Structures are given as structure tokens and as C-alpha cells.
């Protein structure tokens, strides 16, 4: 079926991107923050256009894309992230660049890539969508092209990205060789129908795919690009990397692993569990050593990826019901993590616009000079650490709760211990803000009203999800059950 009405929201996003590019081309002297507001408006239109799709019957496009509640979920998430990032960028980019049209256009395109990754039910489409997102990110990371760090970050990102894409593709080719198809259902059917057990080709293929997607979500040991790219990128893009890019990676992983590869769960679940363990431990331990705030966030988000991978491992270890609740909890955790990260970066950007300092020590005495920003930063760090009443507590709790199966108890225990380690470096940051005096000449300041309002809104979101996760959970539950409606279709044969 070629139903072109399934992706109307994405047309809006792409049209917005083109319109913004064209606007700057026609009117080069336009104030750059207007472009940001236009982007945010476009994203808002995108989000609004997505709302009618909630609960709509799943629409299939040629068997390669699927617009169901899972897709809609990521659609809303992507639109929300792009909107927030555009607003965060407004002053930041205006002060730092003379051309911003491509920047904002690519934000929208990247968001579209994320949605398509979530919608793909076929490897070729998934790969192309992944590259659409990646290409946009390569450019956005290196957007400050004369800035040595930005340029270096983008170089590392694209070289390693291409390298890991090649790995991913080789894995896909092996899976294609074994199953003769690239569609998820087809792969699952072929793997299930296969006689004589798993062959080495499938195993190697899956491992190469794990490496490829592991790179995208920056799971250790494929994570090394992340701290450098995070540090070099423009600050709002760091936020975008740590939210959209990770969410998209997990959207792809969820579709792929619950749809196509679940039949062979025995082959990959131990590996994913090991990756989860390595990732969370490495991320948290390395975070302790950081002095640059962006790198700290990078390592801390690597730690978070470790927690998220626990849910993927649980899909492999549990039965169908566990798999569904683990997916649902993972989606919820992604939302909580996204909102907290955006809140953190809104505050950091407001601080950075003022001081231009992205070291941890640069936050010295923020509680004195700007208590509200300090509060927002504290709340989001508490949320990462999983303290009660903040989003991270509820979502992490449900994540671990849903992932606890007999085979994974050790991993959940390790994750709990890791949360403890993470608190240490979060407290180091808070110490700077609350216990030290501001640097000489630093006086009380007011953040830009826009950033202040956005930070306040996101802070409310963090608290809301933490205190009353029910509405968010219903949404993720709906998305997860859509995911399993597709993949079930009689062949979800879990061990």
C-alpha cells in the first residue's frame, strides 16, 4: 500500500526545513533568532499534526515503513526535542554565527530521520534513515567550522561513524544472506523456520549489527567518539546528540530486536547484558575523572545507555510479557531522561551564554548568581542519579522493575550500585554551585526570559514524571503494545 497520508507530519517538518533554508537564502540579513522561532513553530506544527495519529490504526507503507503508535510516540518525542533545541539555540547561535539557516533546517531533517528510524520495519529503510540522522549530526557537530574543536569533533564522528556503518552493513548483508530478505517479519519467519539451529553467519551478523547500533547509542566499547563529539559540538547540539540520537538508536534497536531478531534471542542476550554492564560501569567511572561539563554529561549519558540496555537484555531473557513491559519501561525511561537532559542543557546554555565557560569549575557559585538555574541543574542531576520525586527515580525504578528476570538479577544489582557511583560526580557538580563563591566580578544575573521559561517548563516536566508517571506511562505502554502487535503476529517465539 502506498498511503502517502501516513507521513503528513514529516512532510511538514521537511517543508519547514526547506522554508527556513529558502528564507535565509532570500533574506540573508534576517535576525538569526527569528529562524529559531520559525523552527520551533515548524516543530510545533509537526507535533500538532502528529496528534491525530495517536491511537489510529497502524498504517503500512509498502511494507517498509509503519505508522503506528510506536512511530507516533517517537514522532512526538522528536518534534518536542527539536522544538526545545531550537529555542535553546536561539540566542546561542545568534551570538556566534552569521548563517544559521542550514543549522535549523538540519535540526528538522535530523528529527525526521529519527522518526523514520522508529517507523522502519525493514533493514534498508532503517539504514538509510539512520544515515539521514547521522549525516545531519555530522554537519551539526561541525557547524562551527572554524572552531578547531568543533571541526575535530565532526571529523572523529564522521570517520568512526562511517567505519561503524560499514560494520553494520556487513552484518546486515550476512543476515540477508541467511534469510534472503531484509524485512523484519521476513527475517523472523526465516530464522524461525530454519533447521538445524543457528549458524555462525547469523551470530556474526548479529554481532556486527550490535556494534553498528551500539555505536549510535554510544555503548561501550563503541562509545569513545561520544565524549569528543559532545565536547566539540555547539552546546545545543550536545543536548541534541544526547537525546535525539540516543532515542532514535533505541527506537531502531527496539523494532529490530523485538521484530526480527527476537527469535534468536539466545544468541545475543548475553552479549547485550555484557555490553550493558560494561557501558554503565565505564560511563560512570570515567565520568568521575572529568573536568569539562560536556564530557561529564557525555560519560553520564553513556552510563544511562547502560541502564537502557538492561531493558534490551531483558527482552532477550524474559517471556513475551516481560519483553513488552521492558520495552514500555525503556520508552518511559527515554522520556524521563530526555526531559531531564533538555532541562539541564537549557540551564547550562543560559549559564554559558553569560560566562562562556563549559568547565565544571565554571559553575562556581551559580546558586549565588542565578539560583533558579542552579535549581534546574540540581533537579536534572538528581533525576539522572535517580533520587525520589524526580523523573529519573520513577522511570529507572520501572525500568529495573520490568527488567528483573532471574537471568538478569546481577545486572540490575550492578545498575543499582552504579547509580550510587553516579551520585558522587553529580554531587561534585552541585558542590561547585552551592558551596563555592562565584568568581571575581561575577554578579547576579537574569537568564533570557525564553530560556528561563523553557527551563521552568522542563523542570515541571521532570517533577511531574517523577511524582505522577501514570500519563507518561500510558503513552509508552500504548507505544510498546503497538510494537508487539506487529512483531507478534503468531511468530513471537520466545525461549
Amino acid at each position, binding site marked *: 500500500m502506498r498511503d502517502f497520508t501516513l507521513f503528513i507530519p514529516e512532510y511538514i517538518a521537511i517543508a519547514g526545513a526547506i522554508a527556513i533554508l529558502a528564507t535565509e537564502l532570500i533574506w540573508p540579513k534576517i535576525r538569526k533568532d527569528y529562524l529559531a522561532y520559525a523552527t520551533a513553530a515548524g516543530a510545533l506544527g509537526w507535533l500538532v499534526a502528529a496528534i491525530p495519529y495517536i491511537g489510529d490504526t497502524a498504517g503500512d507503507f509498502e511494507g517498509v515503513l509503519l505508522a503506528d503508535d510506536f512511530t507516533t510516540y517517537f514522532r512526538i518525542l522528536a518534534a518536542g526535542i527539536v522544538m526545545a533545541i531550537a529555542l535553546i539555540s536561539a540566542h546561542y547561535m545568534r551570538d556566534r554565527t552569521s548563517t544559521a539557516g542550514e543549522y535549523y533546517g538540519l535540526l528538522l531533517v535530523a528529527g525526521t530521520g529519527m522518526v523514520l528510524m522508529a517507523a522502519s520495519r525493514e*533493514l*534498508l529503510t532503517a*539504514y*538509510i534513515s539512520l*544515515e539521514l540522522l547521522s*549525516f545531519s549530526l*555530522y*554537519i551539526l557537530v*561541525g557547524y562551527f*567550522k*572554524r572552531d*578547531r*574543536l568543533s*571541526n*575535530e*569533533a*565532526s*571529523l*572523529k564522528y*564522521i*570517520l568512526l561513524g*562511517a*567505519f561503524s*556503518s*560499514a*560494520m553494520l*552493513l*556487513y552484518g*546486515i*548483508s*550476512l543476515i*540477508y*544472506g541467511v534469510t*534472503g*530478505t*531484509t524485512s523484519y517479519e521476513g527475517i523472523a519467519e526465516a530464522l524461525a523456520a530454519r533447521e538445524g539451529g543457528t549458524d555462525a553467519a547469523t551470530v556474526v551478523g548479529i554481532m556486527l549489527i550490535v556494534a553498528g547500533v551500539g555505536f549510535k547509542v554510544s555503548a561501550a566499547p563503541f562509545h569513545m567518539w561520544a*565524549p*569528543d563529539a559532545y*565536547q*566539540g559540538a555547539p552546546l545545543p547540539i550536545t543536548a541534541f546528540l544526547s537525546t535525539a540520537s540516543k532515542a532514535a538508536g533505541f527506537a531502531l534497536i527496539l523494532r529490530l530486536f523485538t521484530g526480527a531478531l527476537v527469535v534468536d534471542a539466545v544468541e545475543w542476550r548475553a552479549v547485550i547484558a555484557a555490553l550493558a554492564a560494561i557501558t554503565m560501569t565505564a560511563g560512570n567511572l570515567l565520568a568521575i*575523572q572529568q573536568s569539562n561539563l560536556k564530557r561529564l554529561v557525555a560519560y553520564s549519558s553513556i552510563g544511562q545507555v547502560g541502564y537502557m540496555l538492561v531493558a534490551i537484555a531483558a527482552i532477550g531473557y524474559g517471556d513475551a510479557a516481560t519483553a513488552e513491559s521492558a520495552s514500555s519501561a525503556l520508552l518511559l525511561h527515554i522520556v524521563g531522561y530526555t526531559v531531564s537532559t533538555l532541562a539541564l542543557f537549557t540551564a547550562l546554555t543560559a549559564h554559558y551564554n553569560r560566562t562562556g565557560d563549559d568547565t565544571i569549575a565554571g559553575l562556581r557559585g551559580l546558586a549565588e548568581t542565578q539560583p533558579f538555574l542552579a535549581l534546574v541543574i540540581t533537579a536534572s542531576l538528581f533525576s539522572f542519579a535517580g533520587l525520589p520525586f524526580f523523573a529519573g527515580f520513577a522511570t529507572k525504578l520501572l525500568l529495573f522493575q520490568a527488567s528483573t528476570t532471574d537471568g538478569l538479577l546481577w545486572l540490575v544489582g550492578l545498575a543499582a550500585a552504579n547509580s550510587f557511583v553516579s551520585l558522587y560526580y553529580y554531587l561534585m557538580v552541585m558542590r561547585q554551585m552551592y558551596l563555592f563563591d562565584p568568581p571575581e566580578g561575577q554578579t547576579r544575573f537574569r537568564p533570557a526570559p525564553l530560556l528561563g521559561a523553557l527551563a521552568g517548563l522542563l523542570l515541571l516536566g521532570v517533577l511531574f514524571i517523577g511524582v505522577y508517571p501514570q500519563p507518561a506511562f500510558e503513552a509508552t505502554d500504548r507505544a510498546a503494545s503497538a510494537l508487539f502487535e506487529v512483531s507478534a503476529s503468531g511468530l513471537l517465539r520466545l525461549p
Partner: protein
Amino acid sequence: MVPMENYLVLSGIIFSLGVYGVLARRNAVLVLMSVELMLNAVSLNFVAFSAYRIPSSADATGIIFAVFVIAVAAAEVGLALAIVIRLFRNRSTANVDEAATMRW
């Protein structure tokens, strides 16, 4: 005639050579060329799988995948070279080992 495994082995060798190139060479353009080798191996794999499958006259998925891989590879090279050129303008080097300001 030539069995499919021959193509797969050839592709495996090219791929591994490409991996070696990425790991060993210091020039960013050469790293990219090595990645091209890897992608080339992938295409070969896809086409071989497609050509040797039983209902292959009706199924061209592998070949189409290869076409897309080639297209994306070309685009990737274009973009990456732009970044390398920018690196060269910023630092007068295209050596990936020297583009290491950010570390630990």
C-alpha cells in the same frame, strides 16, 4: 563455475583489509578510502547473495541494497572530504593522529 562462497571469501578479505587501513593509516583521506573498501566489500556480499538465491530472478533486494550502499558511500565521502579539507585549513594537516586536541 564459481561458487558463491568464493565471492564471500573475497569480500571478507577486502573488508578486513579496509579495517586494517582504518586502524593503521594516519591520513584522514586514507582512512576514508579504507572505509570505501569496506563498503565495497559489503556491496559485493549483497550482490552475490542476491544472484545466488533460488528465486533470484524475482528478487533483487540485495542488488538494490548494493545500489543504496554505493549512493550513501558516495555522499559520505563527499561530506567527509569537506570536513577533512576544513581540518586542513584549520590546522594544516590531514593527519588524524594530530587532530587530537580533545582527549580523556
